[in-house]
């Protein structure tokens, strides 16, 4: 998704890219999903302790139901005014979704295939003692420390690190095909999802990436956030697929366009973005 103002053009662009480029971009065996070419079948085995490459998803996301919130979580949730699929009533001009002005999506909302682009592509790279993950959406990146350090016990207090939009993360290989990442210390301003659910800076968010084979990467995300939710739950259970060509598009939400659209069109007309 770029901005509300260019949602239509971006969706069309993605559609045209998919359709027009279909002949060149189609994998040897068609598509896994619209816009995602299938790689040769059967896939080869998963390499050992290696996720590097460009992946697209989430595909077939089957999360658990969201558990009841605590009173603190409910109070914050009531202040949120989502739009689009997340709400049948809220109009974009009246929504307070921070992404309308292109504020950072934050983690883990950044993992969702955002309205605009079902192009949740990301790549794994590395630097001393860490893994790096770059995301197509907003061109943001995260670093995952692999040096055995413990996560910070707190953030935003003396001697502790500041909270971050994408949190503080550590990772470890559980076996040759499964990488486990634990994250905490997220900045509380971003929403957990398009519906506006909250997540706290003390939440523990765990990602489990299991590379099933050469082209399939399974991701399960669990959230444990006692400040705002009454019990932990599986927030994402989905597949990510290898990208033919291993390339990215540039997918930015542009604040000047989003703000102009909201103020000059959405608010005056009361428009609802489906």
């Amino acid at each position: 998704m770029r901005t509300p103002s260019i949602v239509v053009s971006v969706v069309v662009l993605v559609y045209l890219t998919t359709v027009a480029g279909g002949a060149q971009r189609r994998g040897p065996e068609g598509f896994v999903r619209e816009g995602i070419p299938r790689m040769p079948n059967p896939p080869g085995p998963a390499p050992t302790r290696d996720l590097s490459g460009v992946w697209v998803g989430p595909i077939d996301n089957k999360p658990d139901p969201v558990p009841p919130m605590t009173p603190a979580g409910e109070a914050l949730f009531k202040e949120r005014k989502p739009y689009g699929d997340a709400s049948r009533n809220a109009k974009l001009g009246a929504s307070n979704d921070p992404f309308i002005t292109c504020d950072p999506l934050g983690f883990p909302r950044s993992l969702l295939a955002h309205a605009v682009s079902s192009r949740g592509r990301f790549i794994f790279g590395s630097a001393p003692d860490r893994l790096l993950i770059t995301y197509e959406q907003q061109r943001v990146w995260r670093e995952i420390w692999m040096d055995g350090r413990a996560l910070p016990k707190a953030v935003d207090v003396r001697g502790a690190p500041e909270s971050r939009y994408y949190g503080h993360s550590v990772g470890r290989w559980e076996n040759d095909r499964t990488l486990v990442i634990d994250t905490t210390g997220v900045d509380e301003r971003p929403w957990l999802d398009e519906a506006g659910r909250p997540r706290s800076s003390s939440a523990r968010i765990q990602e489990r990436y299991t590379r099933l084979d050469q082209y399939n990467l399974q991701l399960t995300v669990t959230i444990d956030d006692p400040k705002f939710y009454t019990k932990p739950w599986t927030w994402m259970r989905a597949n990510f697929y290898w990208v033919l060509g291993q390339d990215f598009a540039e997918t930015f939400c542009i604040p000047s366009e989003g703000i102009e659209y909201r103020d000059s069109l959405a608010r005056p007309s009361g428009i609802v973005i489906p």
Partner: protein
Amino acid sequence: MPKTCTGIIVGVAVAVFLSALAAAQGNAQSNEARSPWKYYPEDARANVGDGGPAPKRDLTGTWAGESSGAGVARLVPPESPPPLTPLGKKLFDQNRAEGGRGGITIAESNDPHVRYCDPFGFPRNMNDQIRSMTITTLPNRTFVLLKFMNIWREIWTDGRALPTNFARGRDAHDPTYNGYSVGRWEDDYTFVVETTGMAPETWATESGYPHSVDARVTERFQRKSKNDLTLTMTMDDPKLYTKPVSLGVVHFRWIPSQTFFDFSCVPSSVQRYLKEMADPAAKPVVAR
């Protein structure tokens, strides 16, 4: 004892007390246990010297730039005045950079980043707000991950040629904020990157140098030692400049902890600041 003298003594005593307190706090801070999750600019400043020879063909890691607090100075600013063609001058005159032309205010500026936090785009993101960058290398490409705005660039190293036709449409390449980049090792310590196809609505520098979509920017990353990396940038854009223009030379230092803090321009915060403070402050007072 005269009051003045008493006052001076009390004043000196207070000053001594405050200095001692400040020193104690400073010591306490420097003696405080270091969190591996925090960036300590004083530690980065204390990392003097070259650290030994540079590894060959390797820029991987996290680097501090001039806005890191690590005492890293810019070596050469962008060339000024820029050698503009008439069209280049017309475009440059339209760009009202904050602080330019005798003091343009933020309310008067039309800098899309200052007013909205729009992405800098390349090459501005390599010569403005240079806080920290991390570099990672894959077999066919190198990524530059910038801490300011948490944004990354991709540089292909698989030998491909740069595209040449930029436009919106199926038979052309979309202009992009970061352009299209290819890189190669000129020698064991010099990585050269060529970039073109940058969206022309972005500025090339903080002062509003324009660029066309066909501009071609050359970056030379030279790793002179383990701790020192310099970046020299030149832009060739014959439509807007009479000759290649230097975008300056910036310096980076290796960060021993390999950690840095986040820093982003947040659009909603800037909108609130402009609405409540900057724009009203700039409006002339109407006589009653």
